[in-house]
């Protein structure tokens, strides 16, 4: 899994691949969930800097992690989304429960 994840305290940053589809989302899910359990993660940051494609499988994957974390009182945010990804997030309604930031919010209580 190498470069796709970074754990800082109880925060997990997931560096999403160029294309987030069903195939890639499945692979990410398994690795992410293992980290979330083992490292007592409370905040997930989805970093879209490298991502130029996402479909509804990506929405399902984010929503799934959100539900798991929410259950334990955690938070999920998305950063560095381009116009296209922002549109997908907006259409899906997921922006209502997940905040989108330009970059990692430094002073945020979330982190």
């Amino acid at each position, binding site marked *: 899994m190498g470069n796709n994840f970074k754990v800082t305290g109880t925060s997990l940053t997931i560096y999403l691949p160029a294309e987030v*589809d069903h195939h890639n989302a499945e692979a990410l899910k398994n690795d992410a969930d293992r980290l979330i359990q083992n490292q007592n993660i409370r905040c997930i940051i989805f970093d879209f800097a490298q991502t130029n494609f996402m479909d509804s*499988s990506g929405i399902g994957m984010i929503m799934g992690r959100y539900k798991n974390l929410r259950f334990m009182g955690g938070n999920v945010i998305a950063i560095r989304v381009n116009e296209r990804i922002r549109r997908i997030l907006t*259409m899906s309604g997921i922006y209502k429960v997940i905040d989108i930031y330009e970059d990692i919010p430094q002073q945020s209580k979330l982190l």
Partner: protein
Amino acid sequence: MSVENEMKLEFDSRSCNEGFARVAVAAFLTQMNPTLEEVADVKTALSEAVTNAIIHGYEGKVNKITILCHIRQQTIEIEVMDQGVGIQNVEEAMEPLFTTKSDCERAGMGFSFMEAFMDSLQVQSEPGKGTCVKMTKKILRTENKYER
């Protein structure tokens, strides 16, 4: 650009072919000189249809998915077909957020995305026989010489 052109793509219902299918269709689309936005729209809609064939149609088993693309004038028509389990109630399946696989973290937005990103969407399905999703989109821009 030809005013008429056609291609058919048949591949295994493996998730690793989702990206391949998107690139192949996008490459075929290029002759219509689409905008980046139009390419992204078509790729997203196609990805939804192919993913559905893999997850719902064949339920993870390896079988054949067929994509038929037809360019007529300024319109691309894309059909995605499987010979999988089919859909009992197409109208219900097409409702936003409806999914029969919420345990697999499906968002129930596949058909909504196809409708949003294409100009038309038709779903034909017969339980036990399979599903055919037909989508069309008008591409507005025109020819560029020496470029594809």
